[in-house]
């Protein structure tokens, strides 16, 4: 197996004197792997994301990405959050183009290669089913559509690492399952590395190769679980017995964490 793409060595982070937010994290994520982090709320899942992308430095241990220590924001990553956070004065297309106006080397080339970039954005929007809505403003889109656009924005600069912080948390159940499939298809096609933070166990089990279960604050990884379900996975899988058993086992573990 190839060397780890993301490597955490004994990583702890304390924001202030009140103790560690996360503690003793040791893990390897391989390039192209889809990992999910689940755990009770306040277990430092979001902190983990900030460490991974270099928005925060660990107070102990080291984070390495692509065989180099992380010292500042990692431009090879894209992020999406529970709130789509689209800019209301920009059309969907312009919102998706925003990262290209900021990240190098695209930033310098933005004027000359604008046509080409718009093409990328259109293609990406088309693959998530937003072809008709490119010129609409975010407030004219439904919540699910906004979240699709937000994921497109996270992917437009072709990041090698996609960080998702409960991206489907605010959506209704049907839209959520629809977007699972959108994300699955994007990942199957491009095979970027994904770190998905979620509290939805079905979501984690359906999408990820590896699920990490975290304890309560201070957050530690208490279980690493490889999901052996064959790919590509169909949504129907989630209603079959092996999948349900798997989710129930994970749930039991979280239950233990909560009760201790």
């Amino acid at each position, binding site marked *: 197996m190839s060397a780890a793409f993301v490597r955490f060595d004994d990583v702890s982070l304390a924001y202030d004197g009140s103790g560690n937010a996360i503690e003793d994290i040791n893990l390897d994520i391989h390039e192209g792997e889809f990992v999910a982090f689940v755990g009770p709320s306040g277990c430092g899942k979001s902190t983990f994301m900030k460490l991974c992308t*270099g928005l925060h430095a660990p107070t102990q241990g080291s984070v390495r990405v692509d065989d180099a220590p992380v010292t500042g*924001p990692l*431009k090879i990553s894209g992020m999406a959050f529970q709130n789509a956070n689209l800019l209301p*004065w920009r059309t969907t297309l312009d919102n998706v183009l925003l990262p290209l106006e*900021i990240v190098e080397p695209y930033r310098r080339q933005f004027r000359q290669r604008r046509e080409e970039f718009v093409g990328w954005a259109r293609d990406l929007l088309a693959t998530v089913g937003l072809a008709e809505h490119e010129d609409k403003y975010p407030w004219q889109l439904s919540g699910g559509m906004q979240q699709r656009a937000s994921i497109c924005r996270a992917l437009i600069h072709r990041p090698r690492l996609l960080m998702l912080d409960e991206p489907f948390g605010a959506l209704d159940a049907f839209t959520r399952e629809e977007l699972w499939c959108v994300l699955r298809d994007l990942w199957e096609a491009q095979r970027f590395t994904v770190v998905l933070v979620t509290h939805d166990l079905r979501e984690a089990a359906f999408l990820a190769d590896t699920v990490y279960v975290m304890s309560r604050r201070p957050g530690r990884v208490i279980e690493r679980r490889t999901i052996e379900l064959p790919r590509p996975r169909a949504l129907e899988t989630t209603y079959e017995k092996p999948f349900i058993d798997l989710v129930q086992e994970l749930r039991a573990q979280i239950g233990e964490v909560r009760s201790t």
Partner: protein
Amino acid sequence: MTHNSKLIERLAPWIAVAVLVVVWEASVRLFNVPSFIFPSALDTLQALVTYSGPIAMHSWQTFWTTLIGFGLGVVVGLVLGFIVGSSRFLYNACYPLLVGFNAIPKVAFVPILVVWFGIGSVPAILTAFLICFFPIVVNVATGLATLEPEMEDVLRVLGARRIDVLLKVGLPRSLPYFFASLKIAITLAFVGTVVSETVASNQGIGYLMMSAGSQMRMGLVFAGLLVISAMAMVMYELFALLEKRMTGWAHRGQNR
């Protein structure tokens, strides 16, 4: 039916004005108030026509001093608001200072300004400026300072510098606040000019009202009031229109 109710809705402000004028005229006549105490609507109108020449001249003086003061206020307000709003430290440091400054009645500055610049347009311009820049600063700074942290993370991870975040997200985001504050600022600017003119000028509507008042020509005083109010209203509407034009995305759902 809907057409009719729309028409009524449009006419409503004018009807309100007409009712006010009628009540004014009627009550002055009914209680037989002498016109050197409280002139009737008709007396005021008469003064407005008779003295239209001097009123126009003084209004023009008031108008341009106000606009210059307002213009200064916008420039200084924007720059200061951008600086204060761009960092949490500066925001915390400067905000109490600004509030304290705003609490001083601006009339209190007029004597100082007169000592520094003499009688005339300069104190009026500066008073207008002093009174109107505050809401602009506060609105722009607040718009910038209340940026969503997630949005900032999305951009920072791409290697955006602070200035990128401010220009791409902060500034457009604070524009609705800015334009809303312009409406308030322009009316305040008129207050500043007129206040200064009443004590430290020999031109402008404020001066006109002061001198007419001392001669008990109350019709002219009230005519002055009307003119100020009309000018401020027109400017307010102008900026309201500008606001709608520039930041339509923030007023979604109203005219869709």
